């Protein structure tokens, strides 16, 4: 597919590989560096330069992290932080997918009054990311008593114009005849959605899930605002709290361990869903 663009001569293949490898190295280096750092003692880390190869303290650092050292710092176990982040990221990803599929379904397949008005309203919210509407959103969450709850972490981030647009575009590529065939076969709207639209959207859903999971996992500003109690912190927030302003007070080895743990779930999601993810991005099965 891409051959035509670059050519297939030996030189251009070599060049292509070189660029790809260079890119990988640049992207992977910080991750490698963090992983290496998480296997050294704090003395080694505080004594630059940091070695480029893993040290011998891995077992001790990771053992310490899980056996309570991080608990001593933030008052919350690392398992709890990972759980909070997972719940939030899953909630946002699943919630966004459900909401955006439902609204795209309504906009594409139903004729109702103010249909286009609804579409444009959704479209306009694209221009209002969380950061812009953060004050009113915070006020609403306080009024609803959702501070320090999973609902408070998840709900405000769910409404998604981007995903709605994506599904709208996809639904519009579904031939009208298919909808009509289903109607003649006796399928009502819900059946059509469940039996035909949903399976046909599977790769799109998978791709979107990966993107949204990572989006949710890496949220910083909103969780910071909406959680007061340490036990509701996400791992990203806790990581920030572990870093004290005085360098010497910061347990850098444990910070590095926590960092590795924090990037592990998103990496797992990408790796496990890679096949679906790529399929969803590059092909539409018709």
């Amino acid at each position, binding site marked *: 597919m891409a051959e035509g663009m670059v050519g297939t001569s030996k030189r251009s293949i070599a060049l292509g590989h070189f660029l790809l490898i260079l890119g990988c190295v640049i992207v992977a280096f910080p991750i490698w560096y963090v992983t290496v750092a998480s296997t050294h003692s704090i003395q080694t880390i505080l004594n630059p330069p940091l070695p480029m190869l893993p040290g011998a303290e891995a077992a001790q650092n990771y053992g310490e992290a899980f056996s309570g050292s991080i608990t001593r710092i933030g008052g919350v176990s690392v398992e709890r932080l990972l759980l909070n982040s997972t719940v939030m990221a899953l909630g946002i990803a699943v919630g966004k997918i459900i909401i955006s599929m439902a609204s795209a379904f309504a906009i594409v397949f139903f004729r109702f009054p103010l249909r286009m008005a609804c579409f444009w309203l959704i479209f306009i919210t694209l221009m209002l990311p969380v950061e812009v509407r953060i004050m009113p959103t915070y006020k609403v969450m306080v009024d609803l008593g959702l501070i320090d709850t999973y609902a408070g972490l998840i709900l405000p981030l769910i409404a998604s114009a981007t995903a709605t647009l994506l599904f709208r575009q996809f639904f519009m590529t579904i*031939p009208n*005849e*298919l909808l*009509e*065939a*289903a*109607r*003649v*076969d*006796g*399928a*009502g709207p819900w*059946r059509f959605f469940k*039996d*035909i639209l949903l*399976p*046909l959207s599977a790769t799109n859903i998978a791709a979107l899930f990966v993107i949204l999971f990572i989006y949710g996992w890496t949220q910083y500003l909103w969780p910071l605002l909406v959680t007061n109690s340490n036990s509701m912190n996400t791992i990203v927030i806790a990581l920030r709290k572990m870093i004290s302003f005085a360098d010497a007070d910061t347990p850098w080895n444990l910070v590095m361990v926590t960092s590795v743990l924090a990037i592990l779930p998103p990496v797992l999601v990408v790796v496990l869903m890679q096949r679906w993810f790529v399929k969803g991005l590059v092909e539409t*099965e*018709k």
Partner: protein
Amino acid sequence: MATLSLKDVRKTYGKTDVIHGVSIDIADGEFVVIVGPSGCGKSTLLRMVAGLEEITSGTIEIGGRVVNTLEPRARDIAMVFQNYALYPHMSVFDNMAYGLRIAGVRGDDLKARVAKAAEMLDLSTLLDRKPRQLSGGQRQRVAMGRALVRDPAAFLFDEPLSNLDAKLRVSMRLQIKDLQRRVATTSLYVTHDQVEAMTLADRLIVMNKGVAEQIATPMEIYDAPANMFVAGFIGSPAMNFLPATVTGSDLLISDGSRMPRPAGLQDGGVILGVRPEHLTRSRSAGPGTLTVRVLAVETLGADAFVHARLGESGSEDIVFRVPGHDRPAEGTVVSLAVDQDKVHIFDAATQRRISGM
């Protein structure tokens, strides 16, 4: 199985009338073909019967029951679409079973019915495949199977063969006809291809610009087209039309040649219609013949179609059929005898048929 009846069915989009009042009573088990040029409203009419398009006015009855406001699923019809509209993620079996499952058919009964339809369409070995693993002809058969398996009151077809190559189209045409005979289900079939229409139909509806110009059997339409549109549309190559004047004892053609005056006509201008197969080469010129100059010859094998121009300096084009081994050379002048029993006379103003045969 059921009768199907349309009474003054109309369709309007905004201010444009797309269907101008079509009425027909279709008998139980009859195969009716709607034929007409692209954009004349065939699909719209069919989709109104299916319940996919609202009816602006008039009534549609299926099996004696008015279905005007019923959803497609409540009309007991099955439809075959132009692009087949198979569910891409379902196997052939599931595609065929989907409607039955919704209707509550389960288990062995479901399997038996799908198996029976699959057998009739020679799909038994393909039941596990996905649509994308099938050829065009196989997809078409699955689309047919999906309709067949439901055993509906009526089949509706919207140009189901137009995406197939010519050879497959001919064989599928025969298969559809045979299948419809065997299951004897009332069928309404849309096509723009007049050969398909003629070969399939018990009765034809010839449509033009939203008007049903003529409703009759294929041979009735061929022998006695109601107007010049129908006459020109049905038959291939199309009928020749020659302006003529009825005067004295003659029918005077524009190039000056004379035909015997047909009975029952008043003096004045008419249009003479002659099919290419009703012109034969003649040794002698004279009354009852036309003299033409050959422009081009299309050789098909058994036959050849000759395109010619009327008269020495005439402006009317004329097409006639000759045996493949007896073709005139291009540029030669030939005489053609007109089969007087097979000519059609149309009113020059209204284009309606006035006499003939």
